[in-house]
């Protein structure tokens, strides 16, 4: 069983994003970029399936400009067997990414695609579901547990009301939630080895996909800030304030 894991390189989760002063975009210059945390979890899930002999190959894939190759190097260091780069300098929105992934799936014929549930930059939470639609495959989002069986996969998914277990006929698309696993760290020797591994390059043209962005971001800004609060020195003061000033109790 081959598993395809789409990974995105995003602003590191520890860094608070800022809008550019003119509102034209998000300030990214010189800031630390990392693999999307959900994609690390997706990779980890795929690698573990390989380690227990349920998967034969893990292919990492990233779409974007030359910088996304950094993310692919990390994926290789973590244990992906191969890396594919779909090279494009266009702004890639979820529908475009899904179409690129769809085209790659038709070439690679994986049995399972494991995506992150959302990229923590655009917070869209769309791509995996869109890919499943284009492929007419079943989907299980927000996976907390994955169990592969004969011709099927059972996925425990996190829902607003608790959890539920879906049984998907393979091939299928899964998206990962935070509690699926705890990703490993790449070791230094593996990072060195990954530097030498080849990255296969494709273009949207070769894949026959137009990646024109459909949504237009008119401006970005920081949301209204809450006015600074106060520290109170006792429970009694807190309760008095909540009663008389805030009037919430």
């Amino acid at each position, binding site marked *: 069983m081959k598993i395809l894991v789409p990974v995105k390189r995003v*602003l590191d*989760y520890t860094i608070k*994003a*800022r809008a550019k002063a003119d509102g034209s975009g*998000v300030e990214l210059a010189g800031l630390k970029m990392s693999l999307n945390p959900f994609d690390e979890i997706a990779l980890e899930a795929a690698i573990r399936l390989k380690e227990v002999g349920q998967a034969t190959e893990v292919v990492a894939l990233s779409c974007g400009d030359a910088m996304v190759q950094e993310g692919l190097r990390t994926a290789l260091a973590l244990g992906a067997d191969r890396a594919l780069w779909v090279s494009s300098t266009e702004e890639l*929105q*979820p529908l475009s990414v899904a179409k690129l992934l769809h085209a790659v799936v038709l070439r690679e014929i994986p049995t399972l695609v494991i995506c992150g549930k959302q990229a*923590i*930059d655009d*917070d869209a*939470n*769309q*791509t995996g*579901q*869109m*890919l*499943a*639609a*284009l492929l*007419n495959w079943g*989907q299980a*989002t927000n996976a907390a547990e994955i169990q592969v069986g004969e011709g099927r996969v*059972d996925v425990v*998914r*996190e*829902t*607003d*009301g*608790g*959890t*539920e*277990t*879906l*049984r*998907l006929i393979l091939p299928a698309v899964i998206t990962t*939630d*935070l*509690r699926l696993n705890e990703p490993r760290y790449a070791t230094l020797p593996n990072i060195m080895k990954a530097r030498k591994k080849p990255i296969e390059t494709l273009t949207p043209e070769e894949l026959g996909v137009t990646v024109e962005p*459909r*949504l*237009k*971001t*008119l*401006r*970005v*800004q*920081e*949301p209204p800030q*809450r006015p600074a*609060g*106060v*520290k*109170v020195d*006792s*429970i009694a003061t*807190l*309760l008095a304030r*909540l009663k008389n000033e805030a009037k*919430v*109790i």
Partner: protein
Amino acid sequence: MENRILLVAELGPDGHLKSSLRSLLTAAKFLKGDIDVLVWGGDTTSAVVEAQHLPGIRQVLNGSGPTLADGLAEMLCALVRPLARQYTHILTAATTIGKNWMPRLAALEDVAMVSDIVGVESSDTFIRPIYAGSIWATVCCPEPLKLMTVRTTAFPGTEGEGRDPVPVENLPCPAALLQSTRIAVQAHVQEGRPSLENARVVVSGGRGLGSAEHYEALLGPLADELNAALGASRAAVDLGYASNDVQVGQTGKVVAPDLYIAIGISGAIQHLAGMQTSRVIVAINKDPDAPIFAVADYGLVGDLNVLVPELTAALRK
């Protein structure tokens, strides 16, 4: 051109309409046009009647039947897709259900989708948070069919009832698809407490609670005193203090109660993303520099093991 708007409702486990539909109604009013409501589920009997009495809508569409009972994305797409192009806008709440099926429909219809809107500027321009809510983007969606999930906490629910019940159109229940089936459900309910989505007060605990026993023993009585729902940070959920469905934040639930009390929570940006639009925020933390204090209206520095029982006792008086 007059807009034609479809709101896709959700039912609670009790078969009643969730109040989130009234927030969708508020968002839809900004779009101006005819509003239809689609109710779906295994048994929609009471929800359809409730929907018929909503103010300002044109008609109710009813998709009821066994294949819709589990809310599978594949089935919901099969239900909505035949109608989709009759509408200019389709809105649903940004819940784990809405986020699951709507992008699938978008790809089937080859339209881009707008996730998690918190504002409507015009019938094609919307505001949505990105980067864990650190940034708001104003996005223009030129698609002829605009699909959007709505962050319902950003839109206060439309109150009231319509004068006469609106007509209902029954939709054919789609045939079962084999791609996916639901084989188990593990529902989690907060015994005797309001749900996180609807609670007026939320008491939330983090890693500072130290153990599952402490989480329950300290926060439970406080929540009961305030008729509050319990919430948690991701750390508290990961450590097993609380169940996953009460995680508040970028990747959990977004809540905006009148009062949010954060106890032993540091205030990581991913947590703030889920609660910073609460009306009043209280934080209890032993670290005076914890980032949670930057968003807290009232901060109390000290040991939660002392302060929380004291607070509960003071409320009892």
